[in-house]
């Protein structure tokens, strides 16, 4: 009798298909995975610790660096949590622009997902196409905030500034053209025999297991659980918009692919509705204890300058208490849990990262499958290490 033994294979932290610095130690029986040990933390920057030493306004730029493929979704989650703590009412125009940007960010993040996921499975054309469209979203980012990725555009109480005139046309053109591009991707993938063979029946996780392991976002909906925070726990005025929440049936990578594609089409519809609702008005709440003053006051009046100096240097004291706010980020539920002791800095700021919790499911989804299927599962989980390691 020949004896067999398992082999240990190290994958990452420098590996093109791990989407960042993720290291997986695999135990293989032939090519079949019998054990996966993920190692994370290579990108740990201590954002939660840093936040305890910064005022509420100063934490905002740190949130850009969590899920760096969806900066404005992170900004939104943090800002909505602080506004809940401070009980600040946001003007409607600011809220509408926030929703436009959050949905464009969802498109941007999903475009990177489809690009990298397809590239990992060997479909390079989609990668080039999706990055072409992502460029347009980044141009919109640059147009309104001056930065392509670390936007830092939202403010507690509203926005840092109003959007320029060409914004509406540029966003409108993009969301009108986007469904056509999505048709192109679908033409390349949906019935492509290689794509279907690689994704159908891959990375199956039942609805019960998905909830037990804490999956959220498209990964949870792909398993047939109808749960979307934008509809079920609305924040930032999402209850005023009509959109469908797609749900999968077969709990596999192919269904998660379909769910995300429908989500992108729905995101275009939400942006269109928001553009129609966009009315002129203030973009910052009238709440001088908390918000920065408008820039023209800072430059032209001594009171404005003093006001700006006070908010920038001291920040504002928050009431004693604790709040949690979860938002539907492109990857899942992104939550900010703020504990305030009455000071101008959070006593504790906890970030609930969707990718961190979702990555936990990798073992359940991959045991007994081949190494090549693991690559597809990493793609379908859509993880970002900046958010996992914080």
């Amino acid at each position: 009798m020949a004896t067999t033994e398992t082999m240990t294979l190290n994958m990452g932290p420098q590996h093109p298909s791990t989407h960042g610095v993720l290291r997986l130690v695999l135990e293989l029986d032939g090519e079949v995975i019998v054990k996966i040990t993920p190692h994370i933390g290579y990108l740990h920057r201590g954002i939660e610790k840093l936040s305890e030493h910064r005022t509420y306004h100063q934490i905002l730029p740190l949130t850009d660096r969590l899920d760096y493929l969806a900066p404005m979704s992170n900004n939104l989650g943090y800002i909505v949590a602080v506004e809940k703590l401070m009980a600040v009412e946001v003007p409607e125009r600011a809220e509408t622009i926030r929703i436009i940007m959050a949905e464009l960010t969802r498109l941007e993040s999903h475009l990177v997902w489809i690009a990298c996921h397809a590239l990992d499975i060997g479909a390079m054309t989609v990668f080039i196409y999706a990055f072409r469209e992502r460029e347009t979203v980044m141009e919109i980012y640059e147009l309104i905030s001056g930065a392509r990725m670390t936007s830092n555009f939202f403010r507690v109480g509203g926005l840092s500034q109003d959007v320029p005139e060409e914004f509406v046309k540029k966003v409108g053109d993009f969301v009108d053209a986007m469904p056509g591009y999505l048709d192109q991707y679908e033409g390349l993938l949906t019935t492509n025999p290689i794509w279907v063979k690689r994704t159908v029946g891959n990375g199956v996780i039942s609805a019960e297991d998905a909830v037990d392991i804490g999956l959220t976002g498209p990964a949870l909906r792909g398993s047939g659980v109808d749960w979307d925070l934008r509809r079920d726990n609305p924040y930032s005025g999402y209850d005023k918009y009509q959109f469908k929440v797609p749900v999968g049936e077969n709990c596999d990578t192919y269904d998660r692919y379909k769910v995300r594609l429908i989500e992108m089409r729905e995101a275009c519809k939400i942006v269109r509705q928001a553009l129609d609702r966009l009315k002129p008005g203030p973009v910052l709440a009238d709440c001088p204890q908390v918000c920065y003053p408008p820039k023209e006051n800072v430059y032209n009046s001594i009171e404005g300058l003093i006001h700006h100096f006070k908010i920038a240097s001291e920040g504002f004291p928050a009431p004693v208490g604790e709040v949690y706010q979860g938002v539907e980020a492109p990857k899942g539920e992104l939550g900010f849990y703020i504990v305030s002791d009455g000071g101008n800095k959070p006593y504790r700021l906890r970030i609930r990262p969707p990718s961190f919790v979702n990555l936990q499911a990798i073992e359940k989804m991959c045991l007994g499958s081949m190494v090549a299927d693991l690559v597809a599962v990493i793609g379908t989980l859509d993880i970002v290490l900046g958010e996992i390691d914080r």
Partner: protein
Amino acid sequence: MAENNRAVLKLKEKFAASIIDVVEFRGEVTVTVAKDSIIDILSFLKLSLQYNLLTDLTAIDYLGKKEDRFMMVYLLCSIPNKDRLRIKTPVSEADCRIPSATQVWGTANWLEREVFDLFGVTFDEHPDLRRILMTDDWVGHPLRKDYPLQGPDREPYKGRLS
């Protein structure tokens, strides 16, 4: 109101002796309970009241502010009922351990590893209690309040000089 919350009513009925405090702030209900019955309470909430999703599990360090140094926080979410509940339980520094919630939710595995790593709270009966974000040979627990922001071997930051 917090008193009329469906979970609070049931918990008061069943675990009256274990409930330390019930607070409502900005529409969010927080129930503080004793550490001894934490797993019973969490299982009851999951099985009988449909809090099926453990959104988050974390800790707070109240060094010098409260009698018991650490506060464990469990953020529960009910998908069928679309509501949330926060359960907290104090953990003292002298007896810095708590039963693991992995037996109730699989999610707790990595989240508890993170609390173990960054706060140094030990979880009994955890299947795989190792550091997760810091390296295995790291000394100290970075999110504790007595851990310096700049790291262990550097002068503490005293603010900008200019």
